[in-house]
C-alpha cells in the first residue's frame, strides 16, 4: 500500500513538473512567427514592432533615446 501511495504522489509530482517545464518553453505565435523584416517606427520606442523578446506588455512611450 505504501508503495502504491508513493507511486501516486510521485506520478502527480512528475506530471506537475512536466507541466511547468513544458509551459515554460511554450511560445506564443507572435514570438515564434516573428521576423525582424519590418520596422515601421523609431526602434527606441519598440512599441510598434513585436520583436522576438516581446513579453506581451507594451512599454511606456518614454522619450526616444538619442543615438
Amino acid at each position, binding site marked *: 500500500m505504501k508503495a502504491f501511495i508513493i507511486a501516486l504522489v510521485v506520478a502527480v509530482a512528475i506530471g506537475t513538473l512536466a507541466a511547468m517545464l*513544458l509551459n515554460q*518553453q511554450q511560445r*506564443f*505565435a507572435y514570438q515564434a512567427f516573428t521576423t525582424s523584416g519590418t520596422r515601421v517606427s523609431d526602434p527606441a520606442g519598440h512599441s510598434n514592432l513585436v520583436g522576438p523578446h516581446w513579453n506581451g506588455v507594451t512599454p511606456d512611450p518614454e522619450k526616444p533615446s538619442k543615438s
Partner: protein
Amino acid sequence: MARMKFLCDADRCIECNACVTACKNEHEVPWGINRRRVVTLNDGKPGERSVSMACMHCTDAPCAAVCPVNCFYTTADAVVLHSKDICIGCGYCFYACPFGAPQYPKVGNFGSRGKMDKCTYCAGGPESDFSTIEYEKYGSNRLAEGKLPLCAEMCSTKALLAGDGEMIAQIYKQRVIKRGYGSGAWGWKTAYRETVAI
C-alpha cells in the same frame, strides 16, 4: 439561404497580400496567426501563380468531423464556425483540414497551446451578434451586418470572390469565357466535392 464559398481566381491574384492585411486588421488577429494567407506556386518560374487561401468552409467539413469535443457548427449560410469555449486545442482539426486553416495562439507543446483560431467568414461565433465578447474571441461579424468578408470585398484585382457559391461560380465562368482561359477554382474539388465547369 445562400451557400457561402470563397473562390480565388489565380489568374488575377497579384500576391499583394491586401486580403491578409484586411483580415488581420478587421479582426485584430494577433501577430503570428494568419487566418488568410497567400501561397505562391512555382515562385519565380514561368507560370507562377498565387492563391489566397483561408478556411474554405467545406461541405461536410473534416475539421468538424474529427473534433473530439464537437465544437464546430455550420450556420444556415453553410459557414463553418467553432466555439472557443468548448475547444480543447488538441490540433486534430489541423491534421484533417485540407487547407491548413486552424491555428493556435501558442506553438510549443500541444498541452497548453490555447484555443484554435480560424477564418470565420467574417461571421463571428456562437455568442450573440455584435457583442464585445464575440469580437474579442472571433473578430467582427460582417455577415450579420449584411456585408461579405472583408478580404474579398477589398481585393484590388477582384481575384478573391466571396458570396453565394452559385453566384461567384457564375461570375468566374463569365470571366473565363470572356478572357478565354482560367486555371480553375482552387481547392473547390477538395472543399466542396465539385468544381466550376468551364
